[in-house]
């Protein structure tokens, strides 16, 4: 198991956000973490990235307590792609990707051919080679996300965490990035965990889905088994149809308007929200 959480409790200050989390992730899994806004997806990812120490229970990565792993060693195993990354200084994209080699480089040691090779390889995998010498301050949001993924790959991680990394991108860019993730997941058994909002994207690429609501994991299982109208309705308080794609053999959800026959009676009952 690359990740093990047992009776994990997470929160900020006095506020408990998630409790009683028990799950394992094996090497090579592709897990989507889904749930309504504010359910704690990001909190869970913060904890998995070591940014937020657990308030209770245990969290291990590669069978070691996450909090006990020194930062550099942690960054050699685990890479994170955040939702967006603003950079103030005009580093070239290659320099940004090379920063991914930081946990592997010796202090004061100069850049080795291996570091450079990793950076170039990661840029090739994310098709960011043409951006190599462009200042990161002057590229588009989609390009920037790919550069950040390249940087994460340059860390040579075994686990990749994505926190709504594609939320701001158009459909083509999203698919491109998930194709890259799928390839890495299959070809080099990189473990991928991504918190996301796009149900159909999750159904298309993730082989396992974890649904979070009300501070706990309410369903966790293979996509085919848990991507059902009942579970989606329970998680999002919204009626959805789930269909099965005849060619790709993946489920997909169809959104329905909230007003007629919606599963959220308090919404429809409220006067004033009825649409024209």
């Amino acid at each position: 198991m690359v990740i093990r959480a047992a009776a994990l409790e997470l929160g900020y200050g006095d506020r408990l956000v998630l409790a009683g989390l028990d799950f394992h992730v094996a090497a090579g899994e592709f897990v989507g973490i889904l749930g309504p806004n504010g359910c704690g997806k990001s909190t869970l990812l913060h904890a998995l990235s070591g940014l937020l120490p657990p308030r209770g229970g245990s969290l291990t990565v590669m069978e070691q307590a996450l909090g006990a792993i020194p930062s550099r060693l942690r960054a050699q195993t685990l890479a994170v792609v955040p939702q967006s990354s603003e950079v103030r200084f005009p580093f070239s994209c290659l320099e940004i990707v090379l920063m991914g080699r930081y946990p592997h480089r010796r202090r004061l040691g100069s850049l080795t051919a291996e570091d450079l090779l990793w950076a170039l390889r990661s840029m090739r995998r994310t098709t960011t080679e043409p951006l190599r010498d462009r200042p990161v301050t002057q590229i588009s949001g989609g390009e920037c996300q790919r550069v950040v993924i390249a940087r994460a790959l340059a860390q040579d991680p075994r686990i990749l965490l994505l926190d709504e990394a594609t939320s701001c991108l158009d459909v083509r860019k999203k698919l491109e990035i998930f194709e890259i993730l799928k390839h890495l997941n299959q070809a080099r058994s990189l473990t991928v965990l991504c918190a996301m909002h796009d149900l159909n994207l999750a159904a298309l690429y993730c082989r396992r889905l974890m649904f979070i609501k009300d501070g706990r994991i309410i369903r966790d299982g293979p996509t085919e088994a848990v991507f059902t109208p009942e579970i989606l309705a329970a998680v999002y308080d919204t009626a959805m149809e789930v269909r099965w794609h005849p060619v790709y053999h993946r489920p997909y959800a169809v959104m329905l308007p909230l007003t007629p026959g919606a599963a959220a009676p308090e919404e429809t009952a409220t006067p004033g929200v009825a649409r024209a």
Partner: protein
Amino acid sequence: MKVASPPASQVDRTAELTEALERRRAEMRRFAAALLALGLALFLSVGLATGIGRMEVGWNAMAAVLLNKLGLAAAPVDRTTEVVIWGIRLSRVVLSALVGASLATAGVVFQGLLLNPLADPFTIGVSTGAAFGVALLVMLGVGGAFLGLSPLPLGALVGALGAMAAVLVLSRDAGRIRKESLILAGIVVSTFLSALISLIKSLDEESLSAIVFWIMGSFSGRGWIHVGFLLPYAAAGFLLAIYHGRELDILALGEEQSHFLGVSVNQVRLKLLLGASLLTAGAVAVSGVIGFVGLVVPHLCRLLAGPSHGRLLVLSAFTGALTLIWADVLARVILASGQELPVGVVTALLGGPFFFYLLKTRQARGMW
């Protein structure tokens, strides 16, 4: 599970790597060339600046004095020339170079650390702390000498380090140092100390001119003892900054991403702050408050050499040294009456318009 080199398109990849490595080497060569040029300029500037003044001294006299000091030649020329060259001018030029290098380096660190292009060595209240230390000593009438040094630099140093400690304590929030709270704490400490300085000035009018003169920043009357005083702080601060140059690059990505990349953010921030504050405190202690060098020089260097901090720190140190050497020469000779201007006035007069120009060009290039 770790991946072996992929066999596909191996040849192509090697060519690409070779090219990238070659580019990297070319960059290093350019950097080395720039350093060499700057080093040469610095050497020449020290010589030229030592020669400029009311009493003309030539290269021959300088060489004679230097050789004598190095124990390579017998007593040189006359005693007056020796005192002017060695005791007055050269020590002052070396001090201004050292202060310039310290302020510029501190500026690079503060700007990188606070992700704020307007940050300078005085942002977090270090200079006000130093000024307060001096004001207090002047008011109390502490005189005499300590280790051959007037007590004012010591007061400035203690004040600067005290202000820095206060800012750090104020900005710590649950064991974390946030850059926003750092700036706020800096403003709070700075404002409070300014009020205390004003209080001292109004309570003790005799001290007014001494305090004001000190705050304006000057190298007048400074000598080797001040160089010796500053050197350990400058060296420690510069080494701390260089040692963490790579982290400074990564910190530019923000706190979270630095964490993701394996940087121990708090530790590194604390060390860098300490380094930059040592540089500033040392510089302020020997020369008073000299503005704009720590703001403009890092900007200029970033414009010319890119944002990578390892290089930026070294280039800024050299450029800062050169800048302050020549600013001090101007301060010495610009008034026809033979009077000296405080060098802080010169740097502000030159730095203001220059900064304006930099800001405009950067805006035009869309850099901020």
